[in-house]
């Protein structure tokens, strides 16, 4: 393997570990410690999609995400400390404690934000892409959503419009098999999800979402086409969430064995580690070194965020409106 490829693979590995350890901290420390409110939607198992896809984008490309967006946010460059602070409701969070786990955003990084209303981000992506097109920019917009969003009217209106107006949108569907409790076969008349935009002339492709390099290559390919021809693209990633829909999900709709079996066979981080080790790209001790280093980094980000101040209660009353205008 070329040194450049090795470096890139290690970069992916590092980003995937960072997302995994962040979310494990949410699950294992924040949840039992009652350090966040409401619930948090973990993407443990889906890291390869976030990392592979976002690394295939340009820095000035925009990303809209879902309630399950910690990974997308971090892959787009959000700092774990500001994410922990936001999830814990601190004043120093990326949204000053007004958004929380489901509404992370960072305008400067082109992370337009998580939108936890399923399907709702796809017309927004079309609007962001329309702006790029009107400006004459070749920036594109990546919209992540779960397979549940394919059943919303919003997705179909957005897909039609994006195709009709030739907008540079990447529709990136993370098929994790469950819409909360309802499995795919009971929610979609068509099981071939990659065909669900065919009516708009958008040919979808299915991609193994557990192999980060496959995700990266597939997104790189369609991104180039979308950028050059200003047309939408659509990919469906096979993936799986090893955790519940959110942190209070009792997961009565599947067996623990199913999730464990999937984890044993399909954990994208294990897959990447085995591949790197098997082809001697990376020696085992280096993976351990990476794991220790990233875990320490996440621990430190968490400890820092834990010390950060709460917002004043009255900050709630400000910020609903922008002052002034043109």
């Amino acid at each position, binding site marked *: 393997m070329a040194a450049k490829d090795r470096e890139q693979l290690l970069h992916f590995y590092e980003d995937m570990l960072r997302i995994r350890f962040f979310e494990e901290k949410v699950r294992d420390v924040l949840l039992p410690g009652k350090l966040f409110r409401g619930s948090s939607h973990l993407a443990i198992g889906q890291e390869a999609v976030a990392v592979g896809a976002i690394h295939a984008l340009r820095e000035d490309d*925009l990303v809209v995400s879902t309630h399950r967006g910690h990974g997308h946010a971090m892959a787009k460059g959000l700092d774990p400390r500001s994410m922990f602070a936001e999830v814990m409701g601190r004043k120093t*969070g*990326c*949204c*000053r*404690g*007004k*958004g929380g786990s489901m*509404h992370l*955003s*960072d*305008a*400067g990084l082109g992370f*337009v*934000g998580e*939108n936890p*209303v399923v399907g*709702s981000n*796809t*017309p*927004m*992506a*079309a*609007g*962001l*892409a*329309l*702006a*790029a097109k*009107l400006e004459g920019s070749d920036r594109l*917009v990546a919209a992540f959503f779960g397979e549940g969003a394919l059943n919303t*009217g*919003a997705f179909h*209106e*957005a897909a*039609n*419009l994006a195709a*009709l*107006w030739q907008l540079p949108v990447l529709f990136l569907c993370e098929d994790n098999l469950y819409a909360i409790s309802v499995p795919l076969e009971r929610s979609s008349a068509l099981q071939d999800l990659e065909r669900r935009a065919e009516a708009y002339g958008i040919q979808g492709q299915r991609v193994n979402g557990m192999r980060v390099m496959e995700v990266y290559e597939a997104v790189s390919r369609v991104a180039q086409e979308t950028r050059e021809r200003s047309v939408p693209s659509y990919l469906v990633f096979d993936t799986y969430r090893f955790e519940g829909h959110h942190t209070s999900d009792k997961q009565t709709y599947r067996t623990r064995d199913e999730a464990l079996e999937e984890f044993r066979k399909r954990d994208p981080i294990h897959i990447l580690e085995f591949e790197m080790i098997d082809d001697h790209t990376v020696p085992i001790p280096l993976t351990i070194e990476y794991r220790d280093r990233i875990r320490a980094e996440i621990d430190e980000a968490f400890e820092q965020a834990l010390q950060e101040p709460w917002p004043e209660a009255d900050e709630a009353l400000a*910020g*609903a*409106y*922008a*002052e*002034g*205008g*043109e």
Partner: protein
Amino acid sequence: MAEKLRNITFAQAIRTALRAEMKRDERVILFGEDVGYYGGVYGATVGLQKEFGEDRVRDTPISEMAIGGVAVGAALAGYRPVAEIMYCDFLAHASDAIVNNAAKWRYMSGGQFALPIVFRSPGGGGAGYAAQHSQSLEAWFAHIPGLKVVAPSLPRDARGLLKAAIRDDNPVVFLEHKAHYTFKGEVPVEEEVIPLGVAEVKRAGNDVTVVSWSKTLTFALEAAETLAAEGIDTEVIDPRTLQPLDIEAILASIGKTRHLVVAHEAVQFGGLGGEIVAQVAERALDSLKRPPVRVAAPFVPIPYSEPMELRVIPQVADIVAGVRRSLG
């Protein structure tokens, strides 16, 4: 020096404002159903596509969710979209974008984004369109923090307020009355921007304050003339913007007249008349000599047949009766 005025319709006032703002700022873009080639079902965008091109004036498919969402996305990326939703009843389709996204993105991002969007939409009844094309839904949107709501009555207000709405950095729901597009009124020849959130006394009077907006305001002005013949001197206040509401102007008027009537076309229950009465009660109950009166639609959908529609939508006579009731 007297203002130079010209007489134009409400639809022309809207079109004039759109055209001027598009010339002023190339980030202003329009889209919606039939707004381009056809010029809008009420003619409010006639000629704009020809003048500004298809990039800036776009016909959309019948996809209100997409229209709303595209407006949000384009605004987040720095444009100032004006999206037309053909009937305000169809705002129900677009409401996820308006209520969940446009209204909240700034707040829940901790102030990182601005959403300069105008959602123009015709509302109101009186034209025989029945229950699904005649509603007055201003209270829905005035109830949502993050939105501004404008409901102009006269062409001058429509033109000046729309300009302000387009220049505002917040999402504005701009409700036009469909039975009012051919209503004529005078507008200054010179450019005029009417700030949002400022009421106007449309008729000064000393005996009773009538607060009203949109088409009903013109009924209130007619009612005031009828009442004048009886020696009742009615002050008519047009809030023009319903969110934010210029309650100070209303309180100032009540300080003088000591009587309050609120007249609107929307159903009474949960309508903005209740909010205005409540704010007056909290702050100036002692100013009122008599209980306030609301003149609004009964709690039924808008019926089709003319005698029934006239029964449901408040008319001049209803406002006259309301004023008499308020005076005891």
